């Protein structure tokens, strides 16, 4: 086993030990790794190090609120004749650890419930007629099985987990034994409260490191400090040393710097984020007090020494890579947020309604009990039974409004034939539509085709900020692979349809196809491929709008629209408002 690999495992083992020393303070561990012996090994090790008797609960991905948070316990309530609260998994894990399965697929709403509990150390249940607060101090292990860069657990959750481990590099063979002894960890846990407060220079050095690595969140810096403290405790120290700070930086800050730094703010405003160098200069001025300049200089040199000591322990290329990856990180971040938008739409529950229990109907238990409740005294008269008497007329059936959400998929021609001026107009029109779509809470996707292929620039999203950013980056030039554009649009539309959304395809192009499906040049091939693709749109039944952007409307310009069975609009002066109006009409018609 190579040195690098064993270093990864040594750090993973160290993280497990530190987490076991202070699970609540450090928040937890994001474990990026496929299922397998390596992950099992780490989990077993981690479990073994936790305080004896600490509960460890595994939370499945699609857990419902009544089990996660808690709610009314039906059987007990019926037996007791009064509402009995049921604790959720979170409350049951108080003082222990929860393991989130497939956290990369977790809905932001579910993550928000867990992060709320992590922040407050208690869980507030305001459900089903119950109002309870239960202590809930937990550490979290998030299992992240994502493969793609953007498949990551929700960023608010990641932000609160001190350690982000990637075991993917370890392969599938269980690594050698470098575990920390359970006894050492237990001792360290006892020693932790006694570790002296960090010196000012340590805190300054850690914050300076965070700034160097481009980690903006104050929470990350605080977490580094806690990790350093736990590290000191693990090594039997009651004073933090630069060694502790270095280990904490490596474990907490370094992965954040490399992993698409989700905590980096992307200011929606125009002001440029001040570069770290400038920020440091500024702070130098702030902290310089005139009367004890000498002491300050001494402190400053102490900070510098510590920063140097930390840097010495970091992988050589880390700082260089961080500097280079700034623009790339912005883009990656944009993608990461996209998956989140889909959570907001769930069937909107209506008030439940009295009705018979037919197959398929879901009983709303709490409302049924509420309906039965006032009659209990009356119904019990003459009967000795103390059970709750629920009759057919009490049944309350759940009702949901299934809202079909619209997804407008823009397929934009960014080829050379659409001159740059036209492309700018198309962008303007799309942005206007985006603004409208977001008012209507519809989702928008963007596909551009140019050169030899079509590219999905923006997966379906509701975030205007992201859409705008991607659109601004859209380059122009090259051939017109219309067939590829139609194909890509159709694929996405079908995917949306399978998720119960109503897709609408909007093509913005002059229709002068000159690249065929496989990337083969030639007008004839391109034309027939594009027509074939258009016919597939017709077969699929997806609604479409073909906006012809050629400067002069040509005879037969509507041939693709006819093939798709969609609407055709020649708009030589691409006018955003006009396109928006058309899209609105079509959407209303397809509902």
């Amino acid at each position, binding site marked *: 086993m190579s040195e690098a690999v064993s270093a990864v495992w040594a750090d993973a083992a160290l993280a497990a030990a530190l987490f076991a020393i202070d699970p609540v303070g450090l928040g937890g561990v994001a474990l990026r790794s496929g299922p397998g012996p390596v992950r099992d090994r780490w989990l077993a090790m981690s479990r073994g190090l936790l305080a004896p008797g600490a509960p460890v609960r595994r939370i499945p991905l699609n857990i419902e609120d009544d089990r996660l948070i808690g709610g009314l316990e039906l059987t007990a309530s019926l037996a007791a*004749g*009064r*509402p009995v609260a049921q604790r959720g998994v979170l409350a049951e894990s108080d003082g222990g650890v929860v393991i989130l399965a497939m956290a990369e697929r977790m809905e*932001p*709403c579910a993550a*928000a*419930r867990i992060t*709320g509990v992590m922040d*407050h150390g*208690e869980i*507030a249940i*305001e*459900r*089903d*007629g119950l109002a309870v607060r239960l202590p809930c101090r937990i550490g979290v292990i998030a299992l992240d099985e994502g493969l793609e860069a953007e498949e990551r657990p929700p960023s*608010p959750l990641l932000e609160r987990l001190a350690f982000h481990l990637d075991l993917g590099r370890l392969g599938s063979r269980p690594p050698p034994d470098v575990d920390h002894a359970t006894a050492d960890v237990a001792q360290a846990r006892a020693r932790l409260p006694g570790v002296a*407060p960090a010196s*000012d220079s340590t*805190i300054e050095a*850690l914050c300076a490191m*965070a700034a160097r690595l481009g980690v*903006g*969140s104050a*929470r990350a*810096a*605080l977490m580094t*400090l806690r990790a350093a403290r736990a590290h000191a405790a693990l090594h039997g120290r009651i004073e933090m040393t630069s060694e502790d700070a270095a280990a904490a930086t490596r474990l907490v800050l370094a992965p954040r710097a490399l992993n698409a730094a989700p*905590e980096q*703010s992307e*200011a929606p*405003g*125009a*002001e440029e*984020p*001040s570069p770290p160098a400038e920020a440091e200069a*500024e*702070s130098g001025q*702030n902290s310089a007090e005139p009367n004890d300049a000498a002491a300050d200089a001494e402190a400053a040199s102490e900070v510098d020494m510590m920063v140097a000591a930390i840097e010495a322990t970091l992988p050589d290329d880390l700082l260089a890579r961080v500097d280079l990856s700034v623009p790339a990180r912005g883009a990656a971040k944009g993608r990461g*947020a996209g998956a989140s938008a889909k*959570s*907001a739409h769930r069937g*909107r*529950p209506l*008030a439940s309604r009295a009705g018979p229990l037919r197959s398929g109907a879901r009983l709303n238990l709490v409302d049924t009990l*509420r*309906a039965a*409740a*006032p*009659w*209990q*005294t009356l119904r019990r008269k003459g009967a000795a039974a103390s059970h709750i008497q629920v009759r057919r007329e009490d049944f309350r059936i759940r009702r949901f409004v299934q809202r079909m959400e619209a997804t407008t998929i823009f397929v934009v021609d960014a080829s050379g034939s659409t001159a740059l001026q036209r492309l700018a107009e198309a962008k*303007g029109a799309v*942005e*206007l539509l985006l603004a409208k779509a*977001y*008012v209507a809470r519809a989702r928008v996707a963007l596909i551009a085709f140019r050169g030899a292929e079509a590219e999905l620039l923006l997966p379906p999203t509701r*975030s*205007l*900020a*992201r859409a705008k950013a991607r659109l601004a980056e859209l380059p122009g030039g090259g051939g017109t692979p219309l067939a590829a554009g139609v194909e890509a649009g159709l694929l996405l539309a079908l995917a949306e349809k399978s998720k119960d959304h109503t897709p609408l395809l909007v093509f913005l192009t002059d229709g002068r196809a000159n690249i065929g499906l496989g990337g083969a040049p030639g007008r004839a091939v391109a034309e027939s491929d594009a027509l074939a693709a258009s016919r597939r749109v017709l077969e699929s039944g997806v609604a479409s709008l073909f906006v012809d952007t050629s400067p002069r409307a040509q005879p037969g310009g509507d041939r693709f629209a006819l093939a798709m069975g969609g609407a055709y609009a020649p708009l030589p002066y691409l006018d955003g408002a006009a396109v928006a109006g058309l899209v609105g009409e079509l959407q209303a018609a397809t509902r």
Partner: protein
Amino acid sequence: MRLAYPFSAIVGQEDMKLALLIAATDPGIGGVMVFGDRGTGKSTAVRALAALLPLMSATKGCAYHCDPKADAGRCPDGSATHAKRGPTSEEQLPTPVVDLPLGATEDRVVGALDLEYALTKGEKRFEPGLLARAHRGFLYIDEVNLLEDHIVDLLLDVAASGENVVEREGLSVRHPARFVLIGSGNPEEGELRPQLLDRFGLSVEVKTPTALADRVDVVRRRDAFDRDPEAFTAAWMDADAAVRERILGAREALDAMVVPDDVLEAGSRLCMAIGADGLRGELTIMRAARAVAALSGASAVTEQHIRQIAPMALRHRLRRNPLDQAGSGVRIERAMAELFDA
């Protein structure tokens, strides 16, 4: 109950702190929306404010802790309990700051039939919900963009009308529910509907401090608080008390606050210049300017006060211009510079 981090110990974030103080001074401002990066202390600030707010006098034993004067005769508890005790029995209560947890069900938000009472006694009784608990205080929703739509709609309606009307399960109850809605959220995780945004009086953006010295202070203070909350809060007690005095003083000064005509006009001109929709912007500017003048101990509102609060009063009311890359804050600053510096 865990101790809250002291309000005055929060490093930087002046906009957010000012907005919260304005809302504490004049609850009629219509709520505060806090946008921001993660780890910038949004929740901390709201909790800190809760710990700092002055006591309020309420009718003793009232389930809605209603105002003995303003709510007289409007409280559903009124006829039964208030009259019995007479107008003199009042008690001093802390201003409620109620958390609306994600996953709260509608029955707990608006209130519903008291299940236990009904099951055991067979009587109908209304059990007040979170809206009743937040009456005269603050209702805080973290990650408001993740809250389910039907709950958001319901909240907005009550926040606007100041009254919660419950018609369910054969109950018909209405009770006063005047509260300051405080929402926080991260626009990256799904945007808010403009209708919802417009309902908030003020909106502020919080950012991670960029100066290293500030960041060091954030970490140092938070660490000190985590290690010994009692000692830390005690050390900041005087500073917090001063803020409380400032709020109380400002509340008293609010009624007598003068708004000169030319200042009023300046506010209107600003709204027109930037094209903020509706009258709500102008009203909010005026209210917020009065509150901020009162907080700073001034006897009349000046143009300076308007400039101070205009960005937070208007930022979320601008029509989005998709082609303008500049943020709303920049547009407002620009408009103010043109209007006032000329």
